[in-house]
């Protein structure tokens, strides 16, 4: 596919990753931190930004590793382990860099970075990138779009939860129960986007 086609596809993939194929609301990836951290807008913001950052870069790096190293060697079934190692290593390095060079940034993001290593959304994005056979440019757009979609979802969830009055919710539903219902309603809303693309 020539470059112009690729950019066009990249744009479509990016937008669809935010709305019609949202990581959390359509593919259920990254639910654990989504339900756990979304109580406060501030921490959700930090986690969301970290996710966008990590996702974009790791999808790009993993694309290179998969297509330039694993496939030529015929070791494509090792991708699970290698992707996880790449993600863990990237997060570790970034954490060290941020801590050294920008204490303010570390204040916001730092504590969330280890949480991201086990976030299924990151590994999921890399695996989808392999299954759908995206080119490099499209993969980067996909990583960025997925991260952005995750960010929007968790910010919306946090905004809603912060305004919920806990006294009015039945006890059995407090915590994960009501979060899941909110997630369901949001997912329903996002389904409405499917006609757009």
């Amino acid at each position, binding site marked *: 596919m020539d470059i112009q086609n690729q950019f066009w596809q990249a744009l479509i993939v990016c937008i669809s990753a935010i709305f019609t194929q949202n990581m959390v609301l359509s593919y259920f990836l990254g639910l654990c931190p989504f339900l756990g951290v979304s109580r406060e807008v501030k921490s959700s913001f930090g986690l969301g930004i970290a996710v966008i950052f990590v996702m974009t870069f790791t999808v790009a790096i993993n694309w290179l590793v998969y297509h330039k190293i694993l496939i030529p060697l015929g070791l494509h*079934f*090792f991708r699970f382990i290698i992707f996880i190692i790449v993600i863990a290593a990237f997060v570790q390095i970034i954490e060290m860099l941020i801590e050294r060079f920008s204490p303010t940034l570390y204040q916001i993001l730092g504590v969330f970075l280890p949480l991201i290593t086990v976030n299924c959304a990151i590994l999921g994005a890399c695996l989808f990138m392999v*299954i*759908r*056979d995206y080119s490099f440019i499209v993969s980067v757009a996909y990583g960025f779009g997925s991260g952005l979609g995750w960010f929007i979802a968790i910010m919306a969830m946090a905004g809603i939860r912060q305004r919920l009055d806990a006294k009015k919710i039945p006890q059995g539903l407090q915590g994960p129960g009501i979060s899941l219902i909110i997630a369901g309603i949001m997912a329903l809303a996002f389904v409405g986007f*499917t*006609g757009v*693309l």
Partner: protein
Amino acid sequence: MKIIDLKIYPVIYIFILMFIASSIIIGAAKFTEKNVKMNEKIAIGKSVIQVLPEIYKKNMTNAEIHKVFNEKVKKANIHNTYYYFTENQSYAIPIEGKGFWAPIKGFIGIEQDKKTISGISFYEQNETPGLGAEIMKENFRRQFNGKKLSADGKINFKRKGEKLSEHDIEAITGATQTSTRLEKIINNSIKEWLKNISN
């Protein structure tokens, strides 16, 4: 000093573990490699035979598929696409492209007159079960039998309730994305094929 107290012990430990794990994985992969390739060939073979009614029988076993495919189906490679055809010049054209969730791969059969469709089959798809995935079901695929390509070599997908001519197929309600994409995939593949065989 016990071996566990050595500073280099963690590194050795990980290396040994990785070695054992890799050996097991590579062993399993090699052991099943033949099986995987065979499965793929049979899936494609079955899909091809399904759209060529003169050699298709219901409920063929894998061995029968293998035999019929090797004996009765010829292969031609034009511009890196494999086309399959029988002695009577009925073609099985590969249709491949992006579905809504994942790639859709299959074959569409066209008879010697280069206009009448003899059938459609899929060997790879991952659309929404109950919606897009209905393209695999018999009642959707049966629609294609006997339909004809329009003057510009196309098939049109129409919504439920609209009148269908012999160039039209009824799309799946609620699976707009899959239907739209499938329409594109089919028409593009047919366009390529018409271009390739005219040379």
